């Protein structure tokens, strides 16, 4: 199962403080749907940010595959200056 890490703010707002999950998911879309099913309302917030899968930050994630041993972090959106 992939290891999923949410930020503390998601823990406070949606998950009752839990920020680490081990989930059997195929891709980012499946992951977000799974979390939305567990914590209604979280999906929209998760989609607004970026994701790092196996330490690679991915912009606009959706169909990116998640391997059974993957580590996934949800990140706040990052904007650049130049």
């Amino acid at each position, binding site marked *: 199962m992939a290891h999923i890490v949410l930020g503390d703010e998601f823990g406070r707002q949606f998950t009752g403080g839990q920020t680490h999950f081990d989930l059997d998911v195929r891709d980012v879309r499946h992951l977000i749907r799974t979390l939305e099913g567990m914590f209604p309302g979280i999906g929209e917030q998760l989609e607004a940010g970026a994701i790092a899968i196996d330490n690679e930050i991915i*912009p606009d994630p959706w169909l990116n595959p998640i391997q059974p041993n993957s580590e996934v972090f949800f990140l*706040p959106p990052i904007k650049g*200056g*130049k």
Partner: protein
Amino acid sequence: MAGYEDKSFKWIGTRPVRPDGVDKVTGRANYGADMKLPGQLTGRILRSPHAHAKILSIDTSKAEKLPGVKAVITGKDFPEMHNGVLPGDEGVNFHYLSCNIMARNKVLYDGHAVAAVAAASAAIAEEALALIEVKYEVLPHVIDVDLALKPGAPLLHDDIFTTGVTPKPEKPSNTVQRIQMQLGDPDAAFKDADVVVERSFKTKAVHQGYIEPHAVVAEWSEDGQCRIWCSSQGHFMVRTLTARLLQMEVAQVRVIPAEIGGGFGGKTIIFIEPTAVLLARKAKRPVRIVMSRDEVFRGTGPAPGTSIDVKIGAKKDGMLVAATGEFRYQAGAFPGSPVGAACMAAFGPYALSHVRVVGYEAVTNRPLCYSYRAPGAPLSSFAVESVMDEIAQKLNLDPMDLRIKNGSKEGTQMVYGPKLKAVGNLECLKAIQNHPINKIPLGPNQGRGLAAGFWFNLGGQSSAVVNIAEDGTANIMTGSPDIGGSRASMALMAAEVLGIDYSKVRPIVGDTSAVGFCEITHGSRVTFATGMAIIQAAEDVVLQCRQRVAKMWEVDVEAVKWEDGHARPAGANAGDQKPLSLAQIAAKAARTGGPLVGSAAINAGGPGPAFGVHICDVEVDPETGHVTVLRYVAAQDAGKAIHPSYVEGQIQGGVAQGVGWALNEEYIYGEDGRLQNSGFLDYRIPVASDLPMIDAIILEVPNPGHPFGVRGVGEVPIVPPLGAIANAVARATGARMTDLPLTPPKIRAAIDAKK
């Protein structure tokens, strides 16, 4: 995707003349203000003289009657937008964006637009502005971020409820959000520290200081389409936001990019484009708006002022055991500060097992806060690097040794979660450690300062087209505005893949109707992401060439290889064929399938973070407090420098801006909340005579996420200078200063306080 690390390049890493150079040095290049259409009118914007006020009424009747005035608009002419961020809106609150472009019921800062006119001449437009009668009810204002965060502060919006706190607030406030990220247990870990340094810092708002003011020409057509000419960091962004704010279909808006005279993040959003379109629609004539310098300072998107607390604990041998930071950032009149990135980047150069960052963002009565090179990071880095310097002093350690001992590297887990892949932080530290500057003895009142910096870099969506002409030359086109020499880099990458001479590749930036979507030029993303699109488009051409030649030779495509700009037999199976050049293949294109056109559209991931380490020597005049920067050396990991001169230029430019941020630049407000220094005479940016030669050292630790190993280079060079200068001044004076900018009066006061 790696594999190019050991390849010898013919064009990558060379320093040819930039393709846009001749037009620029001869004055032929067209910038935003240079466009002129038949019948064009002059647009002008009336701006608030108050920092915070209710708009009781706006009477435009006298202005409308003035001969030569063709259109007058106010906030009532703008469609009302949904107040919130909808799915698919990419985080943009269009209500706030619209209200920033033209105020509705309230003005929220000195310079907030309240009305606009289009007239036959600039003089008539100015006269018309004077005839517009706006009645205000002035309200209390707040600009300082700490004051804005306090309960009872003047309230800017009644619809902002702080996010990230529990329980959810029932009353609105200026505090937009609280964010927190943590690794380990820093509170417990501090107990193991032999030394702990905790300091508070303040910084002022600064402007990006681009030389070219915002400028736009808009033309409205009777069939509901419009064309916009402007300089920006993203004409697709201009198209999308303008269409959305004016409730138009995106394809009805065509945006043609002009050359850009500097952006640095400040042109990644729109301020005047919808206003020009509405005026053009109402006047039925093209309208040009060019901001004055005063308007640029008062009405665009300067970087935030901040208030920061940083605490770091270390063992006697210099090993860091814990760190915390609280970062309070101004947001301007509407939400949007870079406090999230500031938190994430603050401790980036260091491997910390126990670290917590907390961020607060507050709306304030100053212009919309917007991006400025590595948004948010220079300020959080200034605080962290200052405390690191004090740790070194308290432990009697070399500040470089302290940083190398704790430097982040491949495998280091960052406070925001992921672990670093291959990065060049330690390589940069060691390059500075071995630089001859360290052997130069310092004189009286001189000090040497060191600082490290980190920036994420971004990827994202880019498109590119490579068109091969019948003589084998190439026109290449992307939709990424060139703000740092990217056309040269695109041409070099295309030449490398195609195997033709750089001079035979002509790059252009296409308009929104000519090329596929490209995200804005920000996040140091263009050479990385758009460059990757160019590489793939050129590889598409190479594949097509191999396919055409395979037909000519009557062999499989695998029997044809591409080498040094020629199709050659891959082995004996292809027969004894003579190599065919790109020009020879292009000459027969009509007979082998038609034009050779390569294209690519990608969403690039794996940008690879950037690190930079800076060292500088300064001399402080104890009589005046004036700081002279004597020497400056900056080392940076570029992954692979496509055009080293432009990498060096980015490093030198970032340092120059960072030195200004450290020593001189600040928004100065009067008691009435009005900006006091809205021009370059009073807002002091560094000029050439203020700076020494900046020695730029390029390190190349390939980014595994790019075919040539490229990392973005445009932002990280502005991160370390604030800390490096402050540390050098502290060492020169013996007084640690925590309030930027380090102006002569402040330095004098700090020296006097030590006596």
